């Protein structure tokens, strides 16, 4: 018998006995009908403005540098200024409506990850500029996939991750983000889908928050 058959056999034998239903030890079990996550998850406002404001509040708590810009030109100027003051020497980006253009603005040595790249080179870049699939108001997260954001490493290897998003990419909550993934990619999912919620962090030393444990120390989100 194969290991697979052994394990599945054990499982089927084990499941012959009925387990008590969840919550059966409670004095007043909540109704057994299945609910949906959205009923219980933190509240998100109805209107777009409320949701955008919530996203901004969450971003601030998470120490995300959120740049609300009204036009491509303004994004261009802000990014160029950032490159200047933070003395970026090289950037990494990928093909894309926003990301490709943004890298061109900077006239810095650029790695494009779309057609393959050298990891050691990417490691030396000051910034990774990527697009995303969605912004999530409820949690202040950015949803990226390796298809939308230039692969797996671009959004975690450089010390600074810059996300270029459009306002209409904002979704209310996690269920909406998952719905979007299912609709957008149907049966051809990218091999990674990542919910990024703030810059990389750790609390492993005395539970004190430190940013930039292994991933980016800084996360900037441009919201166009």
């Amino acid at each position, binding site marked *: 018998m194969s290991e697979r058959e052994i394990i599945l056999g054990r499982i089927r034998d084990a499941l012959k006995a009925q387990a008590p239903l969840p919550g059966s030890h409670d004095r007043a079990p909540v109704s057994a009908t299945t609910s949906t996550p959205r009923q219980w998850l933190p509240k998100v406002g109805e209107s777009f403005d409320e949701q955008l404001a919530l996203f901004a509040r969450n971003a601030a708590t998470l120490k995300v540098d959120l740049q609300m810009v009204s036009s491509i030109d303004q994004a261009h100027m802000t990014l160029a200024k950032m490159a200047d003051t933070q003395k970026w020497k090289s950037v990494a980006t990928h093909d894309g409506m926003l990301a490709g253009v943004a890298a061109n603005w900077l006239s810095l040595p650029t790695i494009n990850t779309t057609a393959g790249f050298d990891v050691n080179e990417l490691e030396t870049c000051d910034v990774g500029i990527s697009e995303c699939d969605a912004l999530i108001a409820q949690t202040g997260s950015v949803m990226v996939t390796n298809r939308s954001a230039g692969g797996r490493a671009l959004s975690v290897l450089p010390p600074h991750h810059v996300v270029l998003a459009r306002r209409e990419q904002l979704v209310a909550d996690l269920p909406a983000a998952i719905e979007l993934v299912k609709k957008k990619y149907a049966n051809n999912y990218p091999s990674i889908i990542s919910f990024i919620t703030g810059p*990389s962090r750790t609390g*492993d030393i005395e539970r004190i928050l430190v940013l930039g444990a292994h991933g980016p120390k800084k996360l900037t989100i441009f919201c166009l």
Partner: protein
Amino acid sequence: MSAFATQFLKQARVMAADLRHRRIIRSALGNYEIARDKGNASFQDWQGARQLAAQTKWEAINHLDKYLEQFVAKIEARGTKVHWASTGDRAREIILQIVRDKKAHSIIKSKAMTAEEIHLNDTLEEAGLTVVENDLGEFIVQLRHEAPYHIVFPSMHLTRGEISRLFESELGSAPTNDPEELTMIARRVLREKYLTADIGITGANFAIAETGMVSITENEGNARLTAALPKTMITLMGIEKVLPRLDDLALFLPMLATMGTGQQLTCYNTLYGGPRQPGESDGPEEWHIVLLDNHRTELLADAEQRDALHCIRCGACLNVCPIFRNVGGHTYGTTYSGPIGSVITPHLRGLLDWKHLSNASSLCGACTETCPVKIDLHHHLLQNRRNAAKLKPSFFERLAYKMFGFIVNRPALWIIAKKFGRWGQPLQNLVKGSALDPAKAWTQTRDLPKLAQESFKDWWRNRK
């Protein structure tokens, strides 16, 4: 008493009196509690969320064969190789074989409790390989040649001073008192390892049957890098990690974050659906998933305690447990400590050897109350006690209870016994805690509660 029980008692006695340890744990958990409570409160209805989570896990675990097969079929369709391992030995062999086939030398590993459970690092190191843990806390305890102290906070028992001295001696870094600087030292050292590692090993938090994906939750970006840079990726996961639908994550990711660390959402929650696909620019060429049973099916067969397999390893029950907080994580001598560890270790490693953990409990029920998936933890502790007593009854305990039963069933004897108790208790004070004291095991470190001078029955009879 098993050797494990003797060791536990010895260590617990030391740790319970260690005020420094207590101060460190209290301060670490104090911040956690505030954040967790805030997180709970942000939900529209935390209890409703718990019930749904428990129902979802119940559905998954009670149809585990169906969902596992669905998960495996889906994920294999995208080029992932799935291996089944009925025992820890088998899992170690499989992983060692992959490593040998790839002629790998260096391995980078992101935090995985299942790997701790089967002592994977020892096996790989014995085979001459270098394995580096890349979660900061795990990296620290690995440098100390120590097991993780806590399933979520592995280095919670250490101060920055101790970590600085450790880095100084092991990595040759300059001493510092700054957690940020210490983190950056580890970051620099580990960057090097990521770029040169042949193989990346990860654990898993959830496996989605519907779409064939593995979900990994982390804060540091270490798992993201482990799954991006090395050419081969290996994921070791327990068979109980399966969830039916992608939608379920909308609930489980925030719940895990809130209960685990008090965050609204952990920094990186990533779904992996396969190795690098055609047209993708990076990622591992091969991805192996090892599905581990290692006695999980035995726990599954115990219908009464099956819900212990619902566990999402958030560590919340450890954090609220008065026993854990006093004796500390290492005292347990197990991979999984705290209430959940006390419940499942007897199933994973033998009831008679590990029944003492179920006795080390105040039965306060704080664990059951906090558990986000509603595992009936403190009742399971009682069930373990019952099962252990059934399996190997204690002669003296049975005799004592028989005598007690004999007396309380005879009112005349009971009246005499009560009188003896009242008169005898002051005498007991004279020998308290000494070899002559019949209640020595209790009174060595505690006072015996004073017997009431008037019984309820007397009071009732005498009331005006």
